[in-house]
């Protein structure tokens, strides 16, 4: 069930490996390929370094979608990091789907250093599908209420006391 959110610009966080995807993304840039600009890239040495908690944290902090991308199997700069990542993210993907996160919010890809065009496609497709899904309000709704004093007991309206503290 997707509504179009025409004025919604998805915020996508991408966790990419330094040797393949980051370089591939760089190539996309130097080739002046036009692609959606919604993606913030976080560079890591290898997909094997990516802890699924990073993705959870990205959702907690306001990402509407994430991309995880690295070297193709057999091409990992560290030999086997991406093999470990592949198993880890298979489980993560399945568990997140089980708890009700739409898998279209998570994009996993192998993008090599020469695949600038593929990176463009991955980015554009991720942004398109997340735009279709809309903002990840469901995750934001998990946050304790900003402004309310406490989960139980209504607070009487009190003037917000703000104290300027100079460190």
């Amino acid at each position, binding site marked *: 069930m997707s509504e179009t959110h025409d004025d919604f610009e998805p915020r996508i966080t991408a966790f990419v490996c330094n040797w393949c995807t980051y370089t591939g993304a760089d190539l996309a840039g130097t080739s002046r390929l036009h692609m959606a600009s919604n993606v913030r890239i976080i560079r890591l040495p290898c997909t094997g370094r990516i802890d699924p908690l990073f993705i959870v944290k990205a959702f907690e*902090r*306001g990402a509407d979608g994430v991309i995880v991308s690295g070297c193709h199997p057999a091409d990992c700069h560290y030999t086997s990091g991406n093999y470990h990542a592949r198993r880890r993210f298979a489980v993560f993907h399945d568990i997140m789907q089980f708890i009700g996160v739409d898998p279209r919010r998570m994009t996993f890809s192998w993008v090599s250093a020469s695949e600038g065009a593929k990176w463009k496609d991955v980015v554009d497709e991720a942004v398109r599908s997340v735009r279709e899904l809309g903002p990840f309000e469901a995750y934001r709704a998990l*946050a*304790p209420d*900003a402004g309310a*004093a*406490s*989960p*139980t*007991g*209504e*607070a*009487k*309206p*009190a003037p*917000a*006391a*703000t*104290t*300027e*503290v*100079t*460190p």
Partner: protein
Amino acid sequence: MTDGTDTTSAARGTAASSGPPERYFLSEADLRSLVGDLLGAGTEVIAPLATDVCQSPSAVAASACTLPGAAAVDIDYRPLAGADELDLSRGLPQLSLKEHFLPEHEALCRWKQKGTTVEVEDVPVEFAPRVVLAAKPCDSAALAVVDQVMNWDYQDELWNGRRAATTIINLACPVIDESCFCTAVGTAPDDTKGADGLLTPVDGGYVLEVTTDKGRAFAAAHAARLSDDVPADTRGRQAADERAAARARVAANLEIDAASVRDWIGTHFEDPLLASIAIRCNGCGACTSVCPTCHCFDIIDEEEGVGRGTRRRCWDTCQAPTFTLHASGHNPRDDQNVRYRQRINHKYSIYPLKFGEVLCTGCGRCTRVCHAGQDIVEILQAIDIAARRPGEAAAEPAPDAPEPVTS
């Protein structure tokens, strides 16, 4: 008082009673209408409520009142949405009233960095008036016990604010099962300690007794639903009999000399009895989360974005391995034996020495929720027996300071 400890420390949050308690009668229908009146006026009413959220069978079984006719219902103290949600089965709510006075997590302040300054936003400490109905006496009494530490060297405004805003009417407890022992630790199934009144079931409804100024104000505000018709020889007698029977039932579960238990623990820190008690414990901390008197909390700063976040406090447990982890890396309580001993020590020795109250109201939840088989009735019985052995009793009561901790 069975424990002989000094309990004259002033109860905070509820005004001391003056004059004899006032008594009223109301039918169950009147009671539900009263709830309807409160809700209609926009007042939050917290009461036992049957929930259908998935619960483990042992958790449900543990809260069932074992008296004939009582249903095994999963109950919790929640704000009511309607008067028909009120559960009057007298089963034991899973979690105590604690979460409504010391929430599992609550914001203490929020900060936002603006350039080189930091804006700190405090949270309100005044709360809208609300009512707790049909509370278990052990849960209300626990609030009075914790009032002591919340007003000791620091006045906890959030706790006190909620206490001041809340009127609590207990529902006399029939005693849940053999794990109850409220009378052994200074309260009773019909006590109003920490509360403002008591409902006792009688034929056709309830006798309501109010014991504090807040309770009297409550009765006055709802006079339309209450009648004065409490003849001493019928309803009055029935209420008194019900209460006495419950007290006898729970006293049969456990009788201890709390003062000598307190002193024995204080002078037998390394006793092998305490180690033998602790060994089964997994350190899961479930006992501390269901306990109405456990109140330890952690304070953390949770960054929620660049330069902004919330300082929160949340429940902590002395059974957690890192509870006493120092910044140096040293942990004086680094194994479960020592942590479990600490729990017994704090509740039955240190807190009574400091505040004159046992840090326990005998609700028995810790025993029911412990799946490793820790049984607080058994434990207190064993310590009481040890304390009564000839030559074991301390020559004089332990001094008014806890024993220094040896690692």
